[in-house]
């Protein structure tokens, strides 16, 4: 064999691991050793084609060739077929970059995920990393803020607030200490982009947060990560240590006069911590009870100091913007939704995964063209967009474009870009009940409409499911939903009626039930 080992990529992304990537990596290592073949196994992130995981890639003269989904048992046959040089095999997918799923995308934030070794700073830099930070270091804080404003970037966490305006508020605030807080409490069902980014390209988020720190004059930052992501936690901790050791962050950012100390903090299994003020309370070591706004966290945030709180994907968009220019970013998208959106397709879908595209693709194109319809092969009945507080849409409504305003106009929301597909076996009354049950379990308890409203909602849904006094109970359901929407302190109680009412309005047949027979004595 030649001196140069063959580079073989086996994802270390948690989703790939969940279907056996570790065993595949080990099988490749031992099979190669047994055959005396020199290989270098790179543990990359996932390309986002999760139905093909574990997807192994081999670097060849013509590019990277994918094979998948591969099991450990397939490995000897793959070697027999010469996969180490791109040989033909039933699992051979062709050049990864030329697969339909990849070609259709506009990957800005996820350009390196699945491509590089997530923890290699050299690999990160070789693929354009730190260029945005280097450009930011040559600017004033105000100039960075102006660029982020001009890019049109809106918070990717769900609320869609303009990021540049938030940063400007913190920039203009006078304080001896300011903070950067990354909201990585990705608790919405159907979302996994943050996790994939941390596991596949952690330095990107570190770079984005560092640019934010320079822009607003903050010297400390925290990533608040949910505890359900142990793999991401390990990767992030290692990435931060390596970034510090390399002088990228710490006392002097890339040799500049800017200091930025960054730490990961682990949540403890509370959905409400994704709400920014709850998250701040949790970081301060308290019960994560929502704060009333104002004061805005931008003025009185962590420990009462001016704080930028942004979602992972918001920070992650910034290095590209700084490197390529605000206008280049703004050129993607539609209406007031500029740039790209990492879309997460999950649930009962044949080809689920991560897709990054400019705003504007329709739900139908995503679910039918890219996703290939349901996994069960049955008809699509409902699609929930934007997490557990997002609306359920019908199969007839899927021509809506992925855009903050387009979804809002049909009483739905984009949220963090998660799409969950259900087939026709779904019971929408049960889904409505679940929305209340989830809210009752996860409410922080501070405000009555959320705390008590959700519990009353479960009870009301139980009566409807039992077929008891349907018109009367539906009236109660609507009244309760209006109260929760109008009077809850934060989005948890305020948006819970969205899945409930969309289920009721779009799928009324599931709420019109015959009375349950009395149990026989």
């Amino acid at each position, binding site marked *: 064999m030649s001196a140069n080992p063959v580079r073989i990529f086996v994802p270390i992304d948690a989703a790939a691991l969940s279907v056996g990537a570790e065993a595949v990596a080990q099988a490749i290592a031992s099979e190669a050793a047994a055959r005396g073949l020199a290989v270098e196994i790179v543990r990359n992130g996932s390309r986002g084609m*999760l139905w093909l995981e574990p997807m192994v890639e081999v670097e060849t003269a013509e590019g990277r060739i994918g094979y998948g989904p591969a099991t450990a048992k397939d490995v000897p046959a793959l070697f027999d077929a010469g996969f180490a040089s791109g040989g033909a095999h039933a699992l051979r997918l062709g050049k990864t970059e030329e697969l339909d799923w990849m070609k259709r995308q506009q990957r800005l934030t996820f350009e390196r995920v699945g491509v590089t070794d997530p923890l290699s700073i050299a690999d990160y830099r070789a693929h354009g990393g730190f260029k945005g930070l280097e450009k930011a270091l040559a600017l004033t804080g105000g100039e960075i803020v102006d660029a982020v404003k001009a890019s049109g970037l809106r918070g990717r966490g769900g609320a869609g607030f303009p990021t540049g305006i938030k940063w400007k508020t913190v920039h203009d605030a006078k304080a001896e200490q300011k903070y950067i807080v990354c909201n990585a409490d990705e608790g919405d069902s159907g979302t996994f982009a943050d996790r994939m980014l941390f596991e596949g390209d952690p330095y990107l988020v570190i770079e984005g947060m560092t640019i934010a720190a320079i822009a607003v004059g903050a010297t400390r930052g925290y990533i608040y990560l949910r505890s359900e992501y142990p793999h991401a936690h390990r990767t992030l901790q290692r990435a931060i240590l390596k970034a510090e050791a390399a002088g990228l962050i710490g006392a002097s950012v890339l040799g500049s006069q800017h200091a930025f100390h960054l730490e990961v903090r682990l949540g403890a299994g509370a959905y409400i911590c994704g709400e920014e003020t709850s998250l701040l309370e949790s970081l*301060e070591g308290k019960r994560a009870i929502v704060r009333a706004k104002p004061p805005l966290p931008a003025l009185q945030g962590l420990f009462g100091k001016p704080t930028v709180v942004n979602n992972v994907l918001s920070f992650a968009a910034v290095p590209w913007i700084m490197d390529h220019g605000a206008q280049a970013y703004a050129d993607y998208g539609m209406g007031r939704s500029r740039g790209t959106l990492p879309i997460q397709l999950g649930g009962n879908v044949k080809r689920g995964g991560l897709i990054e595209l400019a705003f504007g693709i329709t739900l139908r194109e995503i679910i039918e063209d890219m996703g290939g319809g349901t996994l069960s092969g049955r008809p699509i009945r409902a699609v929930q967009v934007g997490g557990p507080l997002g609306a359920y849409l019908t199969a007839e409504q899927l021509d809506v474009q992925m855009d903050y305003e387009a979804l809002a106009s049909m009483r739905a929301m984009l949220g963090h870009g998660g799409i969950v597909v259900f087939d026709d076996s779904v019971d929408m009354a049960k889904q409505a009940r679940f929305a209340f049950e989830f809210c009752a379990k996860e409410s922080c308890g501070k405000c009555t409409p959320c705390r008590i409203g959700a519990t009353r909602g479960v009870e009301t849904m139980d009566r409807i499911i039992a077929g008891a006094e349907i018109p009367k109970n539906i009236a109660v359901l609507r009244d309760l939903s209006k109260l929760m929407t109008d009077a809850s302190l934060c989005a948890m109680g305020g948006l819970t009626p969205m899945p409930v009412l969309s289920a009721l309005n779009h799928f009324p047949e599931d709420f019109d039930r015959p009375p349950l027979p009395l149990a026989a004595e």
Partner: protein
Amino acid sequence: MAAYPAWDQDSARMIVAGLAHLEGATLPMLHALQDEFGYVDPQAVPLIAEALNLSRAEVHGAISFYHDFKTAPQPARTIKLCRAEACQALGCESVVAELSAKHGIAVDDHHAGDAIVETVYCLGNCALGPSALVDGELIGRVDAARIAGLCQHGRAHS
């Protein structure tokens, strides 16, 4: 399978002291104690309160607010089964029903033996559900038989 040492107030005090310099150190302390002993003994409350100049009520309040923190020793193995919408769409509720009917495992029932299957909402594996997290490792496309087997495995090692 991690076997935890019995609660030891002196080593707990050292763990707390080692983290007292952090801003807002309560959660890091609670996590560190739980990592060490498998749970947070109520004896930790005065230790943390003293180290951080908080009232005992504030510390107890934090422990009781978060789903993760356990105040008594736990079964040898915890299997966190996702029951959020994406996994519901892939049949996680039938998995729960089958666990109970065929394997005698009631989800979220702490008296089920040396292993417990616990509900969580979303593990970030929404395209490969139903999903479970077993001793920190994510498993995709799970069914009731696999989970029941993992419960047995937990017992064998306890």
